[in-house]
């Protein structure tokens, strides 16, 4: 039962990443692309937590924590560029 649930989750996460990729390729301005990558980061954090469940290793949750805390800083720098901050 558990494997089926995890496979369904994997399918939905893959769909989310593909939709983010479409917006990334299509978006006319740089800010659209930055928002698309930011959404992909959020979906990816869920994927990492799911991987810790799949591989049965609790220590992989640290990697997901690093993702959730740090990934937005690079895109904050892009946003500060767009509002002429740095």
């Amino acid at each position, binding site marked *: 039962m558990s494997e089926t649930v995890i496979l369904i989750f994997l399918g939905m996460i893959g769909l989310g990443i593909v939709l983010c990729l479409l917006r990334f390729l299509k978006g006319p301005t740089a800010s659209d692309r930055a928002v698309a990558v930011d959404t992909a980061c959020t979906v990816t954090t869920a994927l990492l937590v799911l991987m810790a469940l799949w591989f049965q290793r609790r*220590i*992989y949750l*640290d*990697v997901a*924590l*690093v993702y959730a*805390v*740090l990934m937005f*800083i690079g895109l*904050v*720098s892009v946003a*500060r560029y767009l*509002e*002429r*901050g*740095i």
Partner: protein
Amino acid sequence: MRSIAIIILLAIVAVGIGVALMAIPFGVAKTQVGDHYTESGIGDTGASNIVTSVVVGYRAFDTLGEITILFVAAMGLGAVLAGGRKLGQRRDVEPASLILRTGCRFLFPLLLLFGAYIFIHGHLTPGGGFQGGAVIASAFLLVYLSCPGRRVSKVWSQTTESLGALTFVVLGLVGLTVGGHYYLSSFMPHGVVNELFSAGIIPVIYVAIGLKVGSDLTGIIDGMMEETI
């Protein structure tokens, strides 16, 4: 003419790498040195993370060279950028929004604490000095982004960096004379595996590497953010 040369060169490289990759099997047995490290790593160093025991136990001399490269690169960046600086000229920058400033005020101590957690627990969980140093540098990067005009004190940064490097070199030389016959050999008791105070000198070394890498990367960010044009 130029594009033809590029395509021919890329084809040669692609065929070479492809033929070489087809001959390497995927997912089979390890090398013998890897087998030796995973089997006797706990007994030799006492760290439960084998990657940590390879980085600062078996191959600590490589890590010394790596830290030297990082220091030389940061110093070279400072030297290259310092040549073209004009004094008294400032760009007009927009101040950050209220959300970013408030978020930075709440998040900055938490990020420092998180970085310290990563490099103190480097011998138990994934992580270590390099990752912890990068997290601390990201915390300072957030301050640079949210409060334009604030700078890291040069004295504190250089003191931390020198302290880290000095701890690494002195502990290595003490290990060379007291413990064994190689650089950074462990001379403290190993303790119980999977506890915080275990694995001899590995946590001390990782704290030193974390301080060094964090202050070096912060120095790189500081040098790039300065008013250079």
